[in-house]
């Protein structure tokens, strides 16, 4: 156990003001610089209070964000009610606001991103934990860490100048020719739109999925693997039966955590998605997300209702990401908890 000692026990060891005068004053005198000449008791309280205040500031910050968002969006909440989330008119001039196209764009781009990122992230985690030659392990995990550290705006910049032309000239014509019949890959090929935004999002969330997956795979007890191997399983069978099956809830947690990131991702998506409030079946078409409409239109919002509607989108995003994150933490915790319990 590495937990610090209980404060109650400490008190009996620290001589307080009364004890000092009665028991061994010479000794106390000698070490008075350490004891703080009897002010330790007071200083302890002040120090503990300051640390408590810092910890409470975390609660205060979240509460502050919530109340500020609510107050600023009150106008729009009263004006539109629940209709705000089910209608798709976005007309700042007429003062009519419905957030459905943005919700649609956010959900579709995040879902597509996870569709690509989940297998990739799990594959990378398996590679790093089980397949990677030992000398390559450290450099490889360093590179994946860098992938997570690249700022969103740089993903966007690269996407605009590299990914979009590749999409327009190679990927989209190919998809249109072979899968055009599905209806998902048709219409004019701008390059920008839902597809490149989802691809860049997928690249951005892979490190989240792989790092959580690695962690929960490591939390699976070693005897599970040994038992599978002893029964004659191949390495993949051992992973599938002994590890992945036990870790699957935690891996789900990693994917949900990545969903939380993807829902709120702003800059790269704003630069690539095309920013048109439309609900289109084709993934070639431009779209809009909740985060990118805020980024794009917030500084243009001149009247109060417009501003309030944008803040309400922010409030919705805030609440949704909180729910998603709580869900993710719960799923991950349900796997790793067993680990910490055993470790004690």
């Amino acid at each position, binding site marked *: 156990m590495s937990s610090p000692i209980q404060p109650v026990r400490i008190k009996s060891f620290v001589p307080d003001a009364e004890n000092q005068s009665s028991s061994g004053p010479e000794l106390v005198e000698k070490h008075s610089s350490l004891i703080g000449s009897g002010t330790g008791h007071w*200083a302890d309280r002040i120090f503990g209070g300051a640390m408590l205040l810092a910890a409470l500031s975390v609660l205060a910050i979240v509460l502050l964000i919530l109340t500020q968002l609510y107050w600023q969006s009150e106008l729009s909440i009263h004006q539109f009610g629940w209709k705000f989330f089910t209608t798709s008119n976005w007309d700042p001039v007429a003062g009519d606001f419905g957030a459905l196209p943005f919700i649609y764009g956010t959900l579709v781009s995040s879902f597509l991103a996870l569709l690509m990122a989940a297998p990739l992230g799990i594959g990378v985690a398996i590679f790093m934990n089980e397949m990677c030659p030992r000398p390559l392990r450290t450099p490889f995990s360093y590179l994946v860490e*860098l992938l997570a550290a690249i700022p969103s705006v*740089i993903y966007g910049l690269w996407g605009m100048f590299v990914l979009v032309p590749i999409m327009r000239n190679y990927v989209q014509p190919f998809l249109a020719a072979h899968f055009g019949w599905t209806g998902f890959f048709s219409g004019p090929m701008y390059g920008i739109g839902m597809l490149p935004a989802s691809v860049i999002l997928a690249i951005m969330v892979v490190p989240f999925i792989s790092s959580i997956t690695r962690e929960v795979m490591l939390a699976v007890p070693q005897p599970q693997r040994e038992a599978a191997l002893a029964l004659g399983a191949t390495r993949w069978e051992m992973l599938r039966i002994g590890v992945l099956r036990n870790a699957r809830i935690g891996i789900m947690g990693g994917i949900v955590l990545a969903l939380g990131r993807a829902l*709120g991702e702003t800059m790269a998506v704003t630069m690539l998605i095309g920013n048109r409030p439309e609900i289109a079946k084709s993934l070639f078409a431009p779209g809009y997300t909740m985060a990118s409409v805020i980024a794009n239109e917030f500084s243009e919002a001149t009247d109060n209702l417009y501003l309030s509607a944008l803040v309400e989108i922010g409030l919705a995003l805030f609440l949704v990401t909180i729910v998603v994150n709580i869900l993710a933490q719960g799923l991950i915790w349900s796997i790793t908890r067993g680990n910490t319990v055993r470790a004690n």
Partner: protein
Amino acid sequence: MKNQSHMRRYLVDHLATGLSWLAAVLVLVPLLAIFSYLVYRGIGSLDWAFFTQIPKPVGEHGGGMANAIIGSAVILGIGSLIGVPLGIGSGVYLAEYGRGRLGDAVRFTADVLNGIPSIVMGIAVYALIVIRQKHFSAFAGGFALGIMMVPTIARATEEMLLMVPSALREAALGLGIPKWRTTISIALRTASAGIITGIMLAFARVAGETAPLLFTAFGNSFWNMNPNQPTAALPLQIYTYANSPYDEWHRIAWAGALVLVILIVAAVTAVRVVASRGVLKGSH
């Protein structure tokens, strides 16, 4: 029959191995593509002017991002002044005092705060500071980045403090040293390398943030040394220039992106080097 199923099983095994290698390669491709393209487009524009001049008007050749680099430094400085003490303080509380319900609540809230989209942080700070002050400022931008640093630093501090053996604390307390002194001079000091690592990670994370600065620091094309006024920032300037239709501005955006990435990679690398040497004093 038996032999056939044996073959199939080994084939599946090899297939799975191959797929996991493929996934690893697929993840490295965009990373290397981004880095090499950044260097290719950016290195040529990294000249003296880039670091010393402010943006030139449209149509004029040259100019740089000096004001944005200084602006970013100011905003990040303000952010650190807010984020580091609050983060370390809450970390100390969680590790040394926070065994009960309140500790759990703070830990949980820190995770929630960590997951809040940065754009939402931007509009919340806009509502809190910019609307009241009626103007954008480096203070508002720094505040937004500062509160984003708190959860990362708090959890890193907590983790590192919990790694400090309690025997060290008991020894200090046994000598009659008060708890506050033990925490600062023994526990925090022993864990300092690890805590600095956490601070640098938090710093690297917010250094590239653009979304929270859009409506707080706002950006500025000129020199501004007053932190109470709209201030330029490197990521903001990259965003503005990338979205412009001018080649000259694109050129400078790439140079800015290269500088930003070099800074962040340096921070992440330093963190790894420190962490690999052992995060506790005396452990290596």
